[in-house]
């Protein structure tokens, strides 16, 4: 940066001198441009000969252009390229849904992820040039702020350095670059594996980037290589992948156990002959996790009260695959997608109603790449709409100071901010508080990207940071609309010893206290 600034200052001074010496040399009296004219007036008073003045004027003119053109030659090789690259990067930014990832064509033997620069697309590499070094991504990243080795800014800049070092060589050899003499290994030397696994895919970095850089697709592509080609990933994830592969859920309970949460509620397992309004898609967490089962049961009671005709897939439901995809296991993800699309297409429903923002994003934005196009609603959207249409009424007051946490995949990822807030504001006696970092700046709970199952080896726990941030507003309840967030906050509240001071509730539970 200093170099660019100094060059600009020098050029500016030179330009004034060119004007001044020029006017003086040609003996022109002018009052405009101001500085040049004033300099000219001064020079004409010094008694220097026209010839001298004009020589100096011409020399400075040439110097000006040498510096200017020299800078233009140098800039692409330096950080000063970013102004040139930012503009095309912004124009060419992705128009697909924010939290959706691009599929890999595994059948055609498309390379399984990115292990070298050549494996990235040209748009991904353009991002590296467009980075303005501002560091906003770093200041928003939960991994970085909690002491993990990952910094989104360093990721982009290290990759860019690597590109500048290796790029020419790669181009010369075209696609036949052998990995025998790679110089530095992209995964390992340039970017360490710890950095790759530290990401929770919360998208805070992408949200604040002024030039629309995409950090996450590079991280996921590197994960795709590590998981699929080398099978090298945190060991804690082996049982999770295994469970999804063998049993169809992250808990390893089996698809037959998917109705046990619903004992005694009269929940219907979808039948092919019936037309439903909603197909309730629970997700693995809300089916098997003891704490979340309570929320699922409340949701069913509310749906029954409101009179929505719904069914669950029950034994036909398998993990949506979001976790596998964010971890880079695209192969497993695509297996789950085909399984689920086959199951979903057997039944007749108007929309899929989800409880989990991750399932919501995956079913809505990612299944369509594989032939599964469905209308998908998160329950906040449904209840927000019903509340506006006065079809649900919050009769009973709930006297609580509730702070609402926007889940990454619901808020920032799907831009659903208002419906849950409208619901909370519509409940009598409820005092709605907001985090300092709220809506699109919401701070991740730390469970995304597979982190619910991974050990947090370094730094502070991400969810501890968020709970302590909540306590600054002095609430008595943290309310959220995502199973991961709920579990992480409950755990942090316990670890921080705040159980007496604060409760953790899902929005459904708050609603069920207020609804008739």
């Amino acid at each position, binding site marked *: 940066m200093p170099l660019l600034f100094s060059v600009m200052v020098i050029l500016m001074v030179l330009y004034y001198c060119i004007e001044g010496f020029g006017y003086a040399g040609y003996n022109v009296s002018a009052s405009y441009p101001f500085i040049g004219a004033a300099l000219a007036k001064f020079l004409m008073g010094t008694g220097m000969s026209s010839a001298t003045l004009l020589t100096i004027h011409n020399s400075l003119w040439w110097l000006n252009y040498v510096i200017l053109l020299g800078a233009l030659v140098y800039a692409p090789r330096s950080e000063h390229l970013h102004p040139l690259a930012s503009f095309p990067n912004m124009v060419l930014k992705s128009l697909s849904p924010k939290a959706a990832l691009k599929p890999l064509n595994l059948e055609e033997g498309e390379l399984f992820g990115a292990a070298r620069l050549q494996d990235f697309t040209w748009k991904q590499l353009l991002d590296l040039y467009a980075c303005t070094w501002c560091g906003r991504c770093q200041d928003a990243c939960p991994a970085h702020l909690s002491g993990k080795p990952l910094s989104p800014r360093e990721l982009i800049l290290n990759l860019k350095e690597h590109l500048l070092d290796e790029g020419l060589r790669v181009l010369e050899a075209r696609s036949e670059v052998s990995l025998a003499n790679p110089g530095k290994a992209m995964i390992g030397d340039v970017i360490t594996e710890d950095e790759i696994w530290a990401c929770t895919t919360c998208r805070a970095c992408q949200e604040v980037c002024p030039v629309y850089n995409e950090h996450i697709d590079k991280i996921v592509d590197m994960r795709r290589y590590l998981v699929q080609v*080398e*099978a090298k990933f945190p060991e804690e994830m082996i049982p999770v992948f295994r469970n999804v592969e*063998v049993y169809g859920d992250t808990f390893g309970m089996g698809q037959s156990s998917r109705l046990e949460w619903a004992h005694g509620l009269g929940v219907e397992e979808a039948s092919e002959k019936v037309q439903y309004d909603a197909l309730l898609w629970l997700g693995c967490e809300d089916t098997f996790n003891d704490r979340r089962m309570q929320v699922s049961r409340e949701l069913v009671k509310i749906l029954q009260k409101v009179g929505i005709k719904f069914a669950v897939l029950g034994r036909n439901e398998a993990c949506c695959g979001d976790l596998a995809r964010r971890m880079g296991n695209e192969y497993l993800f695509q297996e789950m997608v085909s399984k689920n699309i086959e199951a979903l297409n057997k039944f007749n429903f108007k929309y899929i109603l989800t409880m989990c923002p991750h399932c919501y994003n995956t079913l809505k934005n990612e299944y369509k790449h594989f032939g599964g196009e469905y209308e998908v609603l998160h329950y906040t959207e449904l209840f927000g709409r019903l509340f506006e249409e006065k079809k649900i009424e919050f009769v009973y007051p709930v006297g609580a100071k509730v702070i609402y946490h926007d889940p990454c995949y619901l808020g920032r990822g799907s831009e659903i901010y208002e419906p849950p807030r409208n619901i909370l504001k519509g409940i009598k006696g409820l005092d709605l508080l907001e985090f300092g970092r709220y809506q699109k700046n919401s701070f991740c709970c730390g469970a995304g990207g597979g982190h619910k199952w991974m050990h947090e080896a370094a730094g502070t726990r991400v969810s501890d940071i968020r709970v302590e941030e909540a306590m600054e507003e002095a609430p008595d309840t943290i309310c959220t609309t995502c199973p991961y967030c709920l579990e992480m906050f409950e755990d942090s509240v316990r670890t921080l010893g705040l159980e007496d001071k604060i409760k953790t509730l899902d929005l459904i539970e708050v609603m069920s206290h207020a609804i008739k």
Partner: protein
Amino acid sequence: MNIIVCLKQIVLVYSRTGRDAQQNYISPEDQIRIVNPNDEWALEMTLQLKEQLGDTRVDLVTAGPMIAEESFRRCLAMGGDQAFHLDVSESEISEPWRTAGILAQFIKTREYNLILCGERSLDDEKGCVGPFLAELLGFPFVGSVVEVDAKAVENKLRVYRRLERGDREVIEVPLPSLLAFYKGTQVARYSTVPSKIAARAKPIEKVVIRDSKLDESIKKLAGILKLGRVSSPSPRPKWIFTPDPSLPPHERIRLILSKEGGKGAGKIVKESPEESARKLLEFLEGSDLISLEG
């Protein structure tokens, strides 16, 4: 070195969603078909041995109907040079010494220095195939193995056998031998996508066990074992009551404890929480399960 790992395909039922009491409320979808986990850990140990030793051949064999092919191929994706399927009917693997006989017939046709199998399977949990197979082949046998070190001793294996409370017995075993594997610190490796894709297409060699009558070696055992009849598996002589799984838990417990359900054993405590806790403690002490001080 040539190693063969014996993998059993099993069917587990975690949750029952059927409606037919005669089927014990198990519906076909409730069946979870996998390769026995102990056998998978044995395979992982074998692959680690291969990494220790280098020039090693690892074969996989499974006996009986191919009921868990996807899981078997997942094992193949972990590693392994060739897979064999001894295509016999379910009745022929209904008793451990019969399974051992079939495996022995096959293994004798090839050269193996080391055989590994899981210690016991999750469905029957008899744990007998290993010892029977070792006897039929005349191999030394060690059970409950958690670790195998092939480099410590020349031409022998240093084998760690699990005892109680974390103790280990260290045994030096000559080759050829048979080890029944429990679980050590090994984690069944996750296979790469290219391996998975290759394993899907890899041929599993079907081996015909022509002689479905008993092998000569098994007849030898008969002199010691006093074989009775050979018949297809008979139904369980005792009917065990299974309550309808769609009922809530307290109903199911009530049914099990009542005369219509089972033996009518057990008692439901209905007093206040404090009184119930006291009664429960009395019961536990009376059954010698705990001792209360003072």
